[in-house]
């Protein structure tokens, strides 16, 4: 059986998922598509969505991250989409905006650009994909994310090098969570 939902843990007087949405909504992204899975009703009740944002439920969320990415990407219409994990509450508006700005510069030279942050050589999140990769993401058949898509497009892959560990700080364990609150 599964433990408590990490997205509903408390962080800065609200929940982790609220923190993530709040940061993103202040950033330069045009539209936020929130993909819910477990505890969808609670999550949707917590978020006060802006008019341009949407909730999409992924009934197959137990099949892994890919199904949630595909649910969201299917709805996305922009020139690019940023795949954001909701369990990274240390990322703020500036983190997202710096990635977007770097991507926009890169995309002028390469319309198939994919950009990800790298902290001391380690790849973090979120990753931004140009819209040309949408069909490949929707057809992707590995269950736990789109890493192999990046590997297949290394000639379009751009590293955003930084020393900011917020880009690596997701919550996978109780220890991660306790570190977050220190």
């Amino acid at each position, binding site marked *: 059986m599964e433990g408590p939902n990490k997205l509903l843990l408390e962080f800065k007087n609200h929940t982790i998922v609220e923190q993530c949405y709040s940061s993103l909504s202040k950033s330069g992204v045009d539209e936020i598509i929130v993909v819910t899975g477990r505890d969808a009703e609670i999550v949707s009740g917590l978020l006060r969505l802006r008019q341009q944002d949407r909730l999409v439920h992924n009934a197959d969320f137990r099949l892994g991250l890919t199904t949630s990415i595909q649910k969201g990407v299917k709805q996305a219409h922009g020139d690019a989409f940023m795949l954001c994990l909701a369990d990274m509450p240390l990322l703020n508006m500036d983190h997202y905006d710096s990635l977007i700005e770097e991507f926009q510069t890169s995309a002028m030279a390469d319309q198939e650009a994919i950009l990800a942050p790298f902290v001391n050589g380690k790849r973090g999140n979120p990753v931004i994909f140009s819209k040309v990769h949408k069909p490949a993401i929707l057809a992707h*058949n590995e*269950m736990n994310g789109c890493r192999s898509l990046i590997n297949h497009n290394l000639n379009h892959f751009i590293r955003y090098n930084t020393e900011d560990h917020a880009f690596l700080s997701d919550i996978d364990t109780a220890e991660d969570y306790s570190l977050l609150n220190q």
Partner: protein
Amino acid sequence: MTLSRDELIRYNRQIILPDFGVAGQERLKAASVLIIGAGGLGAPNLQYLTAAGVGRIGVIDFDQVSLTNLQRQVLFNTDELGVNKATAAASKLKALNPETEFEVFETQISSENAMAIIVDYDLVVDGSDNLPTRYLVNDACLFLEKPLIYGAIFRFEGQVSVFNQELEHGSRGPNYRDLFPTPPPPEMVPSCSEGGVFGVLPGIVGSMQANEAIKVITGMGTTLSGKLLLFDSLDFTSRYLNIRSNENNPVTGSNPTITKLIDYEAFCAGPVIEEEVLASLSVHDLHADNSRYFILDVREPYEYDISNLGGLNIPLGQLKEQLEQIPGDKQVVVHCKSGVRSAQAINLLKQEGYTNLLNLEGGILAWQKEIDSEMAVY
């Protein structure tokens, strides 16, 4: 197993297919298939496997045909309401193909009978609609080394795969527990009656299962072993996910913890956490003295219109906006159709400070069964 002249004529349109031939037909005639459930998924499986000439088909279903089944369970007629589904299905199918032998099990498949029933078949098709049966059938097929054709539907989406198929080098393909080693919390699993289902969807998904069953038996083509097909009927898209053997699989992983069939109802109900047990009331207690209680019905208005206990109707999704209508100074009995939504409602109301709540055990279904058999159910 040789074919008669009539059989050669009956199956001519598939015998002439490249790679199928008389050999494929003989394999079907020699094969035995057990179909778990004669409902929405069971119907196309039963029809196509019977029509295709499978030699022996077992069908197991404890349930009777009800009016709400007929929107999707196309083997049954309106005049068969109340008849056992396995029996009703077999009588239709015998008329479709007298060459096929049928075995009918008017019982629920359980940990006690599953091994004895499944052992007599070459292949199993899962057309069940609940998690305990899905885990039970999966595990029994693993222990007995039988291939299992998996199908599942929810609202507008379906899934199909082939589990535990014997591969060329003698090993077996992935199974349901490689996808889901353990079940989700029960409140995350709405049934067709709670979540709804698009009527043609089981027809599509069940037909895909029959397609895979025929391929496994005849050895034609490439099956869905190692792949999970996800089908969305609303935008008519399908995609695949690769399934890999999971070393944490409790039956076939590197450290198996399940070596025989277990109590699957308890397994899927999850651990009982004392402080989360809801105070409840039986339908008999409510019937004996209903003046003591304020009845709150958290179903949708159209459900209330079909049958109700006369209480206040506030759908679960609107509870928070209508708290002022719920008294805090009288025992409030909360009910829905079966008890799932009412439990969610009670948890929600508890967070709002209510301490006077009782969950009606079994909901309106229990009331119809125990108190008022004339009440309309759905």
